[in-house]
Each structure stands twice: as structure tokens, then as C-alpha cells.
């Protein structure tokens, strides 16, 4: 089975406060990591390839600005066990919307021959759209939020995470596109040594022309959806903040717990 996994470098938000610089993110304060969902997708691809045979290729989309971050993410996923990587990079790709990213990825899919294409269920912007769009462009069947996969000849049984802790089981024909939900597996640990081992591997880069893309269909010009800014919403009424010394805060909390049937 030939498996393509689409991955993305995203800002590491963690538990820390996000800093803004005017109406944009303060990029100097950001560190980048692989999108959390993508690690699960890569792990799942590796497990499927181990079980039924095949190869795993990771692909990402970027521009000159984030060349290093993209390269780092691809090598990290190779260190996990993906055999090949493809870096799609062009100035024309900058500020693509989800549709643009799917269009670029379709260019890469058309250059290869893949039975299974995986994406993370969502990334930093939270649209969760690239996988479904790519599938529709390819006329492949699609299933989102997949948290269970049983691979068989020519088809798969996949579980989709739906509301209330339920799982919706589907049979899906290959080739197909699946978006992977976190928790489907336990992504393996990647150490410094593993990353060092793939540091010298050649990762091919393809631009718009290599992929046969019309530049007006991608990037800012091709985007139907445009983000105007970033902002922190004015705090509304919100929570009543409990303040004071550590002891005072805890005493007040205990009073609240007692008054409301928590203690």
C-alpha cells in the first residue's frame, strides 16, 4: 500500500499566552512544531505499512518564509519512520486558503500513485477542511475524524468519532482520503538520534510549475476566504476572578465549594 500523509508546521500554542504584535501574531515569540493531529496520522500510516506492506511518504506545503520549519517537520516525520518526503514550496503558495492548499496537494498526488491519503483532522486554523477538499477534487471517497482503521484488500473499515463518545463505522473503497483524529494510536517518540539519522536525506522540492499548477488558483490571489487580522476578544463579563494571597484564594474557593454543594 502506497500511503501519503499530509503534514504541517504550526505554532506551538501549549498552555502559554499568545502574544500579538498589533493585529498579527508576534512571530518572534513563536516556536513551531508538527501539528499534533499529523503525528497520529503518520504513526497510523507506519503501522498500516508495517502490517500490510507498502511505503509511507510525507508531504507539506510552504513558501520561502517557512522553508526551515517545513523541512524540520518533514525530517521529524521521517525519523518516526516515513520512508520518503516531498516539500511543496513556492512564493505563489503564500497565504493560500484551505482550498489552495488542497489544490497544491492534488498536484503532488497526481505526480505519484497513492492508495491511501491521510491528513490530520485539523491544524492551527481549525477549518479541518484540506482532507475533504482534496478528496472531492480527486473524486476519492472521504471520511473525517477517523479514530479506528482496519485495512483489508481494496477497502478499509474505518471508525469516525461522532458526538457523545460514539463511533460511526464505515466501509470505504480505496483509494481514499481519511482525516485522522488524535487518540487513534500512540505516536512513537522521536529522539535527537533519529532526527540526526535523516538529516542528510535528500528531500525533493516542487514548486507551482513542477506541479503543473495555475498560480492564480493558489496563494492569496486564489483564496476565496481571507483572514483580516488576529485579535484577542474584549473580555466580556467572564469569570469573577478570585484574588489575594495563596491562602486567601484557597479559603475563598473552599467557601464557594461549600456553598454550591461541591464540598
Amino acid at each position: 500500500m502506497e500511503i501519503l500523509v499530509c503534514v504541517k508546521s504550526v505554532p506551538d500554542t501549549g498552555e502559554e499566552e499568545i502574544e500579538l504584535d498589533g493585529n498579527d501574531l508576534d512571530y518572534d515569540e513563536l516556536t513551531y512544531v508538527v501539528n499534533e493531529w499529523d503525528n497520529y496520522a503518520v504513526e497510523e500510516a507506519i503501522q498500516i505499512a508495517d502490517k500490510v506492506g507498502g511505503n509511507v511518504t510525507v508531504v507539506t506545503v510552504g513558501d520561502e518564509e517557512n522553508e526551515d520549519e517545513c523541512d524540520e517537520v518533514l525530517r521529524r516525520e521521517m525519523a518516526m519512520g516515513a520512508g520518503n518526503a516531498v516539500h511543496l514550496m513556492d512564493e505563489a503558495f503564500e497565504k493560500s486558503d484551505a482550498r489552495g492548499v488542497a489544490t497544491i496537494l492534488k498536484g503532488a498526488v497526481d505526480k505519484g500513485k497513492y492508495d491511501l491519503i491521510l491528513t490530520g483532522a485539523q491544524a492551527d486554523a481549525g477549518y479541518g477542511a484540506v482532507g475533504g477538499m482534496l478528496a472531492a477534487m480527486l473524486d476519492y471517497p472521504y471520511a473525517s475524524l477517523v479514530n479506528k482503521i482496519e485495512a483489508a484488500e481494496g477497502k478499509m473499515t474505518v471508525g469516525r468519532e461522532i458526538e457523545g463518545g460514539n463511533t460511526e463505522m464505515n466501509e470505504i473503497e480505496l483509494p481514499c482520503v481519511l482525516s485522522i483524529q488524535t487518540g487513534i494510536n500512540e505516536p512513537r517518540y522521536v529522539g535527537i538520534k533519529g532526527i540526526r539519522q535523516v538529516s542528510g536525506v535528500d528531500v525533493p522540492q516542487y514548486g507551482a510549475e513542477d506541479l503543473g499548477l495555475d498560480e492564480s488558483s493558489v496563494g492569496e490571489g486564489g483564496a476565496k476566504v481571507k483572514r483580516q487580522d488576529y485579535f484577542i476578544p474584549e473580555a466580556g463579563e467572564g469569570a469573577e476572578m478570585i484574588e489575594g494571597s495563596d491562602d486567601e484564594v484557597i479559603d475563598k474557593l473552599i467557601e464557594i465549594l461549600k456553598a454550591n454543594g461541591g464540598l
Partner: protein
Amino acid sequence: MTQYFAYIQHAKGEIEDTAAELAAAAKAMGADSVTAVVTGSGIDDVAGKAGEFFNEVYKIDNEALAYPNAEVVRKALVSVLPDDAVVLLSHGTFAMDLGPGLSVKQDSAYLADITAIEGVEGTVLKTVRTELGGSVSTHVDADIAGGAVITLRPGANEPAAGGVGGTVTDKSGDAGDLSAKRKFVEVVAPEAGGVDITKAEMLVSIGRGIEDEDNIEMAMELKEAIGSKAEVSCSRPICDAKWLEAARQVGTSGQTVKPNVYLALGISGSFQHMGGVKGGIIIGVNKNPNAPIFQVADYGIEADILEFIPALTEKINSL
């Protein structure tokens, strides 16, 4: 002229509450008239109920639509809807399955998980949504001249009033070929047994802020200190990491809980998580003063939970 549609989800003969929110959102875009679309098998009753909030209801009745398999629903919608349709959906696991592909097939803009509609200027729709797990908001514009597929965050729009009395139009004959390469098999319920957090009066709920599996013990000790009315629950990342069992997960993809007090420790407060908390007072403890939890909680404490939890446990034990 732009035509507005709302896809109505339904289960067990009832339309979902979000239908009224979709009607209100279309009005906020300046729609004079909104058409509901109801798909399924044997849905006369449900289609009539949708007429309560919409001027017209398109009914697409076909056995192939008996279960809402997004791949099949998409084909029906593409056949029935005009190319420049603006289609509204309630953001959830079905909309995420249907929306992106539908927008490609309709060649229209896709906007997901919109929290506010600011209006339409010319053909540009102005909206608000969040990014980076809810930690920042953004204004997003979309040109909807060629149509749009828009998913709206549940609860973000005030529901519209009912009593519209829309008429039902049968579009079943226009559904076209409904064959699909993905077939629905069954819905599997979560495994029963073990802990039941839905019965607890007090939930000590932990999130990513707990940082390490070894620190789970802190939450267990706090629960022990409080006693039998308390149970430990958690947000998604804790279950994904397998630090706690899935039955303890609160949220739209986990359990819905109604404790007297929900103590959210190191939980950012995403809407998917808070969607599972349906009552009682909410107290958020987080070291990030901008964490969304402080917008939805009744009480907030800015603190590092790794220091706060042991201090609280010690105090309760000394009472």
C-alpha cells in the same frame, strides 16, 4: 440573487435545536427568505417541523439517505441546490465530514466554525472565528458571489423565533445518483462499565496543564480529600495520551456532565470541551490569564495548577 439554505440535522423524528440558530444566522446575512433542506427516509414529519423556522423546506426522501452518510448527502445536495447557493450547517462531526467536499463540488467558499456574522458588504461576507485552539480570534472575509458553505459554531447565534409555517417542497426526484464508495455500517456506543463521571456532584477535571502522567496522582489525591461526592474527569488530551480512561473525558466527543461544581484545572476551555458541561457552577484554574475558560467560568483563579492542587488538597484535609 443569492439563495440561502440551511441543512437540518435530525434524529429520532426531531430536528436539532441548532436549526433555529441557522435561521437566525441567515437573517444576519440579510437573507429575506431561507430554505431548509431535510434529507432522510420517511421524513414528512421532520420536514414539517423544519417549517416552523423556515420559509420553505426542501424534502429529499430516499432510502439511501436513511443514515446521514455525508458522502451520499453531498451528492443529493449538489444535484438539488443551485450553484451559487449559500449553505449553512451547524459545526460538528457531520458538518466537518460534509462541508469541505460540498464547497469544492459547488465551487464555492468554505467557512468553518464561525462564531459571529458581522454582515455582508456587496458580495463579501464578514465573519469572526477563532484559531490556535480558541486562543485568538480573527475577522475572516469571504466572497460569496459564487456561493458558500458555512458551518456555524453551535450556541454562538441566538436562535430565531418559530412560527414561520414554511411550506414543504418534495425534491426527492431531483436527488440524482446516490451511489457512494463509502458505506455506513453501524454506530458503536462507548464501552460501558467502570467509572461514571455523569453521576458525580463534584468534578475535579484536569487538562493539558497537568503536564505529566505522574501528576495525575495530584488530582486523585484532591478527589480523595473531597470524598465520595467527587470524581476525576478530564479533557481530551489526557485521554489521547492514555493517562486516564476514555470514560472520564468530558466534551462533545465524550461525556456530558451536570455536577454541582465543575473544577476545571489547567483546562483551556475550548467549546468542544465546554459543550459537555451542562450545569452547576464552573471554576477555572489556569496560569494563562487569556485562557478561554475565564470567559465561560463563573469563578476564575490565575494560578499554576501544579502548585495550586496540592495546596488545596492540604487545606481540605486540614478542615
